[in-house]
């Protein structure tokens, strides 16, 4: 396998992980609905329904980071070390989430159930919006430079340098925020669909259907806004010479042309949008339909994967630098070596096994829907 092939393969895997991560953000979406849920009984249902899945979202985030580190270390190095505050705020929100499920209902938790519910809410809000902002930077760029020669500068031996705002400027970029808010409403929509499927409580399902209509509508508005901006924005194409030097060329409507050139990515986007709308509309319109999470979830996965594809394929810089275009990261100049990508590719053959056992366990655990009666008699509950 050539290096180029492996780089493309690993970008595909990163795209798949990104798609799965956004689908699993239904956990965060549900958490963000906690504080607006007045009924204590319904809160218990939400927390215990989501609580059996939160580790999957968390783990997918960690694996996304690990895969990015292993396959595109220059991205890992530049983005995490540069957009410091963006990533740290995301991390802090996930730290709070990780303990909150287990601690919230335990005696002796000191700070009270309400505090842990607030933590879950904050993770739901901040996690979704800022992960959207972070993904937005794949299209709208960051203020960084990369100079490998700096490694030899004894007074400042760091190759990636970022604007002094270190991530706050990305959070203030309205285009990133549009995507972040779209992700937030998407997560809430997915959460409604998931809980309609997972919770055995008819009155609450009706309430969730109403919420799903509103959140899905808001998501559509922000997603179409983001898509409009994306398809008209200027992206960076690149060429690489024999010595490994990269030349960047700005191209108007780059991502629109990418969807045309990569017709399969465009088709994936359309199928994804279609499935997303099908699951959402079916759930909202049909009172007895509880399976919307699956077509919508798969649709979201396809849409996100296609966005990653147009971000990195077709000779496109997947992490553009807005202050020094030649520093932009591409899947060619940011990747690991041929040897490492090969080793990791063998490891990636385990992914289908992982997906299969997760699916089997999910099936076993969700065969019987969660109900108030179950929570009253449960050995272990959140």
């Amino acid at each position, binding site marked *: 396998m050539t290096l180029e092939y492996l780089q493309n393969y690993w970008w595909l895997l990163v795209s798949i992980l990104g798609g799965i991560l956004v689908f699993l953000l239904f956990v965060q979406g549900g958490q963000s609905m906690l504080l607006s849920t007045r009924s204590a009984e319904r809160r218990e249902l939400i927390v215990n329904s989501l609580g*059996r899945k939160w*580790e*999957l979202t*968390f*783990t997918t985030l*960690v*694996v996304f*980071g*690990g*895969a990015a*580190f*292993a396959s595109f*270390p*220059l991205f*890992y*190095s*530049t*983005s995490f*070390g540069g957009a*410091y505050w963006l*990533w*740290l705020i995301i*991390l*802090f929100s*996930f*730290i*709070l989430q*990780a303990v909150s499920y*287990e*601690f919230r209902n*335990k*005696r*002796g*938790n000191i700070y009270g159930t309400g505090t842990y519910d607030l933590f879950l809410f904050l993770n739901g809000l901040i996690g979704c919006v800022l992960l959207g902002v972070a993904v937005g930077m794949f299209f709208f760029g960051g203020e960084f430079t990369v100079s*490998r*020669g700096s*490694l*030899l500068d*004894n007074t*400042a*031996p*760091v*190759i*990636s340098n970022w604007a*002094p705002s*270190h991530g706050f400027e990305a959070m203030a970029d309205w285009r990133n925020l549009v995507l972040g808010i779209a992700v937030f409403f998407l997560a809430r929509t997915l959460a409604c669909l998931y809980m309609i499927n997972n919770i055995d409580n008819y009155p609450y399902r009706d309430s969730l259907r109403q919420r799903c209509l509103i959140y899905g509508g808001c998501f559509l508005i922000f997603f179409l806004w983001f898509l409009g901006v994306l398809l008209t924005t200027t992206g960076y194409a690149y060429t690489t010479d024999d*010595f*490994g030097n990269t030349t960047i060329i700005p191209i108007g409507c780059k991502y629109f042309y990418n969807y045309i050139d990569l017709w399969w990515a465009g088709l994936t986007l359309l199928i994804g949008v279609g499935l997303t709308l099908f699951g959402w509309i079916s759930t909202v319109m049909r009172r007895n339909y509880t399976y919307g999470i699956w077509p919508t979830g798969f649709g979201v996965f396809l849409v996100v994967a296609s966005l990653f594809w147009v971000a990195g394929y077709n000779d496109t810089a997947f992490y553009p630098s807005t202050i020094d275009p030649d520093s932009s990261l591409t899947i060619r100049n940011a990747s*690991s*070596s041929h*040897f490492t990508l090969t*080793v990791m590719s063998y*490891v990636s053959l*385990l*992914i289908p096994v*992982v997906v299969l*056992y997760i699916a089997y366990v999910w099936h*076993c*655990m969700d065969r019987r829907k969660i109900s108030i009666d179950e929570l009253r008699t449960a050995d*272990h509950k959140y």
Partner: protein
Amino acid sequence: MEDLMTVVDWSRWQFALTAIYHWLFVPLTLGLSVIVAIMETIYVRTNSPKWLAATKFWMTLFGINFAIGVATGLVLEFEFGTNWSNYSWFVGDIFGAPLAIEGIVAFFMESTFVAVMFFGWDKVSRGFHLTATWLTAIGASISALWILVANAWMQYPAGTEFDPVQMRNIMTDFWALFSGVAVNKFFHAVFSGWALAGVFVIGVSCWMLFINRNTAFAQRSIKVGAWTGLAGLLLTMYTGDGSAVEVTRCQPMKLAAMEGLYHGSSEQSLVAFGLVNPDKSWNNTEDEYLFAFEIPYGLSILANHDMHSFVPGIADIINGVSVNAQGDTINTISYAERIARGKQAHEALRRFDIARANGDKTAMAAAQQALQADYPYFGYGYFDSVDEAIPPVGVTFYSFRIMVILGSYFLLFYVLVLIGVYYREWLYRARWMQVVAILSVPLMWVCSEAGWIVAEVGRQPWTVQDLLPTRAAISSLPASSVITTFWLFAGIFTILLIAEVSIMMHQISIRSSQDLETANTY
């Protein structure tokens, strides 16, 4: 970049803080998961509700600990990027792979099956539930395997070469990651988790004995905890011995710092306990210790398994006398010369970069040849004096002794507990021993953390041994940002730790007052 060393120091403090917090929870997860799995196995084989009750009790405590372990672990992975971005690029080609494999192979296993452990009692068969419990325990150990392989590679970088075009190291031999250093480190860390969890189970059970509640439950738990813990401790000691030999050959400076030894000798004694002289440096004539109680031949035996062998001290190593990978004493080059050759390597890399930019292949080849000759000392090129290449001696020396002395104490502890359990069951009546067991619980954490401090402080100033010092591994950040996040981490982790300990104590207290002989009490 503002005040380089301030950023370096605060980045180190932040990583140390988050790693120490994380390690408060990891060993208990590693050990308690195994103990829970053993108890559940007995339950499945005997169908006894008493063992089901024991399984569920310890599983509850495991769950509380697991959650905060996950929370603190997330930070460490991302900190490599946020605070050590140069490191992430320079060796990311090697270091990233184990982290990604850890996620794919271990984290998903843990996170999937831990849900079955807690919520699957009436949703899956008993056999499936038991399998899930074991897979959670195995997943935790596999996770430890990959992160410790990565850590060991930083201490003994093998299977790589430098790519001057990309200005980074690339992997050339995946299996080289599984060096003797890695194997010893993995087993040492995992088995120490068993030892720690054993003390935890015994301590909590002795609390029940002390208040005279659930004594039969406590006795059952003590037996499983003591045997698992003793096995863990003995294996920890065995692999610790292997680690000492590896350190001698791969990081002789760390061994010298662990011992506070400046001038080594053959038949070198080991300081059992003592005080290092803070005024001592490698180039003055002060005494090494203010006082020391020494074990003759001890260090030679520890380092080389040969009582007559030579063990170099800090000054010897700086002057070029060391031990090679085979354990033979060699005359290598001095640190002053290493620094000079490291700077030559930097200069050759600069020439290579200029030649590459100009497309001059002849000059590139010449520069690359010069670079290859001096590359083993590349990291030394960042230093201006040999003093920068010496780890903090005091912290390493005292941490090593705390680890060893407490480790020896716990061997005695386990033997006493097992005698107490099986010889006329006097443990169940000896209240002083129950108090000792309860008080021993925090000491086990001190011992465990001390081990990591020896490993990580002792390898300073290196992020990657001989290749990348910490000062060249950081991110380009203002010191104020790192200081702010340090205190944020300190505050949040402390708040969560207080809650975790409080919940644990409440759970132990509440459940101790219930009848734990049947699982129906939950």
